[in-house]
């Protein structure tokens, strides 16, 4: 078999890339070792946030929101996009100062965000107890939101196939063929597929994929856990998060509360086993934030993996040493929300050789120097 671009990984980024490249008339084959959405995408909170601390993430997220808001129409399927806002707890005066700076930066870049007091917290999410949260206020951006990760990824995949992309599930790439520092093809299930580009969008497994091309990337797979409760009458639309406690939770369109928090036994690796210590810690923190939830039942508890880069920012663009090897990983828990813009930048680069500042600032090469600005606004 022969194709122009091989994409490894059938999550949100891989499927979006398959869609965008095939729309431009480029031959694409996507390989997913399990099923579509089987990795982090199908296990994530699918929040969409523009409240970041680095200029770059703010713009990427803001541009992504613009794309998300038109995506149901473009993909001709409802992706469940809604803008209920993100409420970010502020716990003390020091955090308030930091929040003021972030809000100033975010507003200067055109994001509609403001600082709110304890009364306003209760107006936006009536079940919250600001004292239990140990909150003195919050920041709130009404245009942040959520989309259904399954619907979005499936819609991308279906439209990609209609455009002529080939999507192979339950097929694992075992080898990447590199000759004279250039990608020549891959081997999947013993079959050789010739190609000019390989895109590594394998999420938490991207380090293993990069190694097949002889590339060492600094990512680590970090096990994360989440819960979902039974359905309740609609009580709030916002996603509630705290950078100090690491908690995030929101009410899904179906009425269930979905959320996560870093667990006491969180560790690197690919273990799928959920832990009771997480469940206990999550339940304690969640009922401290919203006491009335103690009467609500947990239905499911599961694990997923963050693909964590050293500075919690994505790694994108062509490898400086191996021509045709495209990085698209290291999202550190934010792959879903940043995917529209990141995959647009990558597909424009592949189709037209179009350059972007992000291809430089988010290049794998940044880890060689010392100029690393770490994204600090991280939860989950």
């Amino acid at each position, binding site marked *: 078999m022969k194709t122009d671009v091989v994409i490894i990984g059938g999550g949100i980024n891989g499927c979006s890339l398959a869609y965008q490249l095939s729309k431009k008339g480029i031959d694409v084959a996507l390989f997913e070792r*399990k*099923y*579509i*959405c*089987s990795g982090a995408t*199908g296990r994530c909170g699918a929040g969409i946030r523009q409240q970041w601390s680095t200029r770059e993430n703010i713009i990427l997220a803001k541009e992504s929101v613009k794309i998300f808001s038109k995506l149901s129409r473009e993909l001709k399927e409802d992706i469940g996009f809604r803008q209920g806002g993100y409420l970010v707890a502020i716990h003390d005066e020091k955090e308030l100062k930091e929040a003021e700076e972030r809000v100033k930066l975010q507003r200067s870049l055109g994001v509609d965000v403001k600082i709110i007091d304890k009364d306003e917290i209760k107006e936006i999410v009536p079940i919250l107890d600001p004292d239990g949260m140990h909150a003195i206020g919050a920041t709130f951006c009404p245009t942040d939101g959520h989309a259904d990760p*399954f619907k979005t990824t*499936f819609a991308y995949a*279906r439209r990609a*196939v209609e455009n002529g992309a080939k999507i192979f*599930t*339950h097929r694992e790439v075992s080898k990447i063929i590199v000759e004279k520092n250039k990608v020549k093809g891959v081997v999947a299930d013993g079959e050789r597929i010739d190609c000019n580009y390989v895109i590594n969008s394998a999420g938490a497994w991207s380090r293993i994929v990069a190694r097949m091309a002889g590339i060492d990337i600094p990512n680590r797979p970090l096990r994360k856990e989440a819960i979902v*409760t*039974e*359905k309740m009458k609609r009580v709030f639309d916002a996603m509630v998060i705290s950078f100090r406690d690491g908690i995030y939770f929101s009410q899904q369109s*179906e009425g269930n509360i979905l959320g996560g928090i870093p667990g006491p036994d969180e560790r690197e690796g690919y273990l799928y086993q*959920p832990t009771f210590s997480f*469940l*206990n810690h*999550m*339940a*304690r923190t*969640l*009922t401290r934030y919203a006491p009335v*939830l*103690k*009467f*609500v*039942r*947990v*239905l*499911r*508890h*599961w694990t997923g993996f963050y693909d964590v880069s050293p500075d919690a920012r994505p790694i994108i663009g062509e490898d400086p040493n191996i021509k045709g090897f495209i990085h698209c990983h290291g999202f550190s828990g934010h792959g879903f929300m940043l995917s529209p813009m990141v995959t647009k930048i990558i597909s424009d680069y592949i189709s037209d050789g179009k350059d972007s500042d992000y291809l430089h600032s988010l290049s794998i090469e940044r880890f060689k120097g010392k100029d690393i600005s770490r994204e600090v606004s991280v939860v989950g």
Partner: protein
Amino acid sequence: MSKKIVCRCEDVTEEDILKAIDEGYTDFEELRKKLRIGMGTCQGRTCIMLALRILARKTGKSIEEIEKPSFRPPVVPITLGSLAGEEDED
């Protein structure tokens, strides 16, 4: 035509399942994520076996050949209050 409900919690009919399989959702996990079968309060106790049978019949596979969904804890729904370590008043 009367509807045949397969998943009562999420209101999924046999017709919905057959249509999704026709659209290419032939992996049980994909079908589950597409239609939310088994994601409701019963956690699939009533619907997953039925849906697996429909998938097997439609794809000409045996139930043994189909990759089963993972059952996720807790086995029965538990209140957040109990999980947080509070005494249950029930």
